[in-house]
């Protein structure tokens, strides 16, 4: 008798994704839904989708979802969480959303130690608007606003927001993972588990940065895009636990 070992998670609505073939957003959505299911928090979770390719995230997650303006996910999540401290609140943000226009909101939510979880999908470009340079675009990468490839003198260098957020004393858990291979997908899920659990335990601000393929704007096939993450993007954005103070005593001054 066959035993199902992989099924569609409960908190993903039965709707086909609008994402491009091979898009990392889809994988990340599924992982979040799995984590919500496994932690049993589907009925107390409120999500905040971004303006970005994942703008329609509320069409997929079967939990309460409230839309934020571009970049303001952390501010909106802060408002929700403060009113409903016993609910689980996450914001889902692209790299443009979080590391450009939302820089201040994100850093300060982390600094306040808001007890929320942020999923930061780094696909090193503005996917939704057609592939412009993001603050995270790696050097040399061609985008529609860096037609000759990003160069440091002309466009600045890729920003490592997660490291900055790690300096914010209210952040407790920050990890950078990727979804370009099975192994990394599993690691990402673990990181998400850890982040949501930290929130459930009232530890403070957690963030998982996830490197995510955007085959369309990278002009690569999905398989090539995954390869590109492995070989190129991780050079600029190495995968690692950036901060883990989940178990630290955080009562006194830092």
């Amino acid at each position: 008798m066959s035993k199902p070992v992989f099924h569609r998670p409960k908190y993903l609505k039965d709707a086909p994704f609008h994402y491009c073939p091979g898009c990392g957003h889809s994988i990340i959505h599924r992982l979040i839904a799995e984590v919500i299911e496994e932690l049993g928090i589907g009925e107390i979770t409120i999500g905040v989708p971004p303006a970005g390719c994942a703008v329609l995230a509320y069409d997929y997650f079967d939990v309460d979802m409230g839309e934020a303006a571009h970049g303001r996910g952390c501010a909106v999540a802060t408002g929700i969480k403060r009113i409903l401290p016993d609910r689980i609140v996450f914001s889902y943000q692209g790299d443009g959303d979080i590391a450009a226009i939302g820089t201040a909101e994100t850093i300060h939510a982390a600094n306040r130690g808001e007890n929320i979880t942020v999923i930061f999908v780094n696909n090193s470009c503005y996917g939704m608007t057609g592939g412009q340079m993001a603050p995270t675009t790696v050097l040399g990468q061609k985008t529609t606003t860096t037609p000759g490839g990003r160069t440091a003198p002309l466009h600045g260098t890729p920003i490592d927001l997660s490291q900055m957020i790690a300096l914010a004393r209210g952040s407790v858990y920050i990890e950078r993972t990727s979804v370009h291979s099975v192994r990394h997908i599993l690691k990402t899920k673990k990181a998400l588990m850890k982040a949501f659990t930290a929130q459930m335990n009232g530890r403070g601000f957690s963030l998982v940065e996830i490197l995510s393929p955007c085959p369309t704007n990278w002009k690569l096939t999905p398989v090539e895009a995954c390869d590109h993450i492995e070989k190129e993007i991780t050079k600029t954005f190495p995968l690692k636990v950036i901060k883990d103070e989940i178990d630290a005593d955080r009562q006194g001054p830092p």
Partner: protein
Amino acid sequence: MARSRNSTSTRRGHILIERDTCKACGLCISVCPQQVIGFSDTLNEKGYYPAEFLDQVDADTLNHCTGCAFCAIICPDVAIEVYRD
């Protein structure tokens, strides 16, 4: 369970691919350790040539599905269900 004639090992699992959900990204194909997934040669409803499980019960594949679920784990469109036989 019936096994294909000239395979050396047995099939320990199998997968179901939702043909019309698949967007032919090819990631499942790239990660299947047994190389038992390929592209179909007919279009699906969306207009893609979707992935297709090659290790059907009566198929003639060299390797066999182990039910490792790698394909499902990486499938962006949650098009694959995996079963251990």
